[in-house]
């Protein structure tokens, strides 16, 4: 009838169920036969929506969707009270449920969601968890200080904090030249992009871990942050010992400002979930967990993007750009950019977003 793709459906119905409503012996069956056409029309629209082809649906059908949905829903509540036809009842139950999922389904696809995310959603989510960002920042700084102090006290700690594979030639007692060599630029560019891809997948994994561990009331997230930063603190001490602190900081800052910021946000997102579950306030624990979980998920998608940027920076400019000044410049620029994007970028909310948050 209306939708050509469903011709077979309607075709079959037209033959097998003539509109001879009076032929039905039961009142409940007459009720059903009178409304069957609308139900089937709704079913057709729902099927095409499930297939993702909004464009293939007639405008007329799409406009009728809310009415058809309400008709089917009211048919269902009448049928529940007047009909004992199990097959019609279960058909209506499933039809109304399916239609409801479509009427209240995700309104946007991934791409329009992503656009809103970049232009406002991300920075808003970061601002919403500012308290957790502050806590995570404090923990990270404390971790780095602790790492420094521990290694300064006894170099044994260095081996406990830094895995052997990562340390390489960067161990206590190494000469200034050896350490300086680790900060040098690569002579050729071969393999660097593979390195970047590897770094990304590795670092993003760590961040997702830091986020997901927030589930256990945020404690493991914080421990992960402390451990990572203690490692960094130990490394800082090592380079400071031979007077290379500025060079090391410059070398690290190229990608570190982005990467550490990303880890900070991931830890804060995890902590946010843990904190809201421990102190749910007026909501139930489940409600609090789901509200904070959704907010944190937005932050986490952003963290993955930051990890892509960090991996690219780590593989290319850090290995190719020499000189502390230019390294600091790149790192500083990115830090300024992130800070400005998160804390100075207040775009107006789109109307559709406001409508959605009010629902």
């Amino acid at each position, binding site marked *: 009838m209306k939708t050509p793709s469903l011709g077979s459906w309607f075709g079959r119905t037209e033959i097998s169920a003539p509109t001879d409503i009076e032929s039905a*012996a039961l009142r409940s069956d007459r009720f059903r036969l009178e409304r069957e056409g609308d139900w089937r029309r709704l079913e057709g629209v729902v099927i095409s929506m499930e297939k993702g082809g909004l464009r293939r649906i007639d405008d007329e059908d799409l406009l009728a969707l809310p009415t058809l949905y309400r008709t089917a829903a009211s048919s269902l509540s009448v049928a529940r009270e007047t009909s004992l036809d199990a097959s019609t009842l*279960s058909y209506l139950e499933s039809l109304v449920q399916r239609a409801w999922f479509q009427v209240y389904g995700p309104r946007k696809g991934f791409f329009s969601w992503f656009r809103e995310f970049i232009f406002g959603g991300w920075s808003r989510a970061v601002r919403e968890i500012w308290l957790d960002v502050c806590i995570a920042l404090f923990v990270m700084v404390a971790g780095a200080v602790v790492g420094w102090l521990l290694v300064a006290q006894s170099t044994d700690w260095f081996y406990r904090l830094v895995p052997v594979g990562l340390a390489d030639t960067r161990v206590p007692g190494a000469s200034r030249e050896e350490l300086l060599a680790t900060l040098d630029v690569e002579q050729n560019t071969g393999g660097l992009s593979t390195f970047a891809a590897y770094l990304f997948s590795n670092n993003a994994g760590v961040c997702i871990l830091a986020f997901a561990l927030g589930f256990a009331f945020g404690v493991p997230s914080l421990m992960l942050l402390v451990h990572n930063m203690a490692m960094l603190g130990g490394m800082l001490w090592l380079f400071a010992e031979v007077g290379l602190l500025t060079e090391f900081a410059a070398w690290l800052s190229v990608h570190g400002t982005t990467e550490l910021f990303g880890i900070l946000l991931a830890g804060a997102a995890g902590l946010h979930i843990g904190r809201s579950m421990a102190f749910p306030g007026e909501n139930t624990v489940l409600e609090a967990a*789901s509200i904070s979980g959704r907010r944190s998920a937005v932050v986490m998608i952003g963290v993955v993007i930051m990890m892509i940027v960090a991996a690219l920076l780590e593989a290319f400019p850090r290995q190719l750009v020499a000189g502390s000044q230019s390294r600091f410049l790149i790192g500083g620029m990115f830090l300024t950019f992130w800070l400005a994007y998160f804390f100075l970028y207040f775009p107006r909310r789109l109307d559709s977003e406001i409508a959605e948050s009010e629902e």
Partner: protein
Amino acid sequence: MSSATAINKMDKRKRTLVTPEGIAILITIASRGSRIGALLLDFVILIVTIILFQMLISLVADGLFDEGFEIDGDNVSGATEFLAIMQIIMMFIFWYGYFLVQELGPRGATLGKRALGIRVAARAGGRLAPEAIIARNLLRDIELFYPMIFLFVTLIANIIGESAGGMIWAALIWFFVFALFPFFNKDVMRAGDVIAGTWVVEAPRTKLADALSTQGAAVQGSSEVTGARYQFGDKELAVYGEHELQTLERMLREAQTDALSAVHATICRKIGWDPGAGDERAFLEAFYAQLRAKLEDDMRFGKRKADKFS
């Protein structure tokens, strides 16, 4: 008895969801078995896809470059390097994208979930937000893959002879805390569902069957085969309730002759008629239509009879 317990189990999983328009929608929480089945199916699809993709890439690499496929080499050609990057990035995209993109779609289900007729839905009855889908999928790693890898590594270490100490217990605890999580809440939520505010429900797609009272003996009350007219009195119709009516409806739709004659004999015995043979279907159609008419009439006056015992 088994059918009665099955019904109870179904009721336990039933929830009523009130939509913003105030319509009550009955939904059924997906069973744990179908959740596990869907997960396994998704894994198989995902892993087979990844392996096929890897094979394709190494085939291309082997075919195009004599040097083979080496990531760490210092003088790799640009094309090989490109392939290696593709491999790493694609792995990441497959791993997270497979669940994300499909659950964000209008069906709210991955291929595995669709095959088992279940889907993701928002717990509160509102709109399923993209953020919720993202949150529930980000947590899958920590619930499943990390503890599994951890467990696997410690097991290997144990077999080799390195003493892993308490690690194996830590791995086991980590694994079972999350794996058993869905068994300890009535909504079968895993940790990711709790965080995201979602649950997984059954998504039945029932076809509308033909109306029974428009055909055969249900209409005139007389058989087309023998011309006999079946008319039941109030006393005869009072022996059965809604449960029996719907069982009879199912039998009539499935229409197996020997099953029908058994039902025919039972009903005749119950109402004290003499069971004949050869005209079972017409008898049952007429009985069904009249029983339903009576029960539905009672229903309009607020009188319901659940089954033959009430």
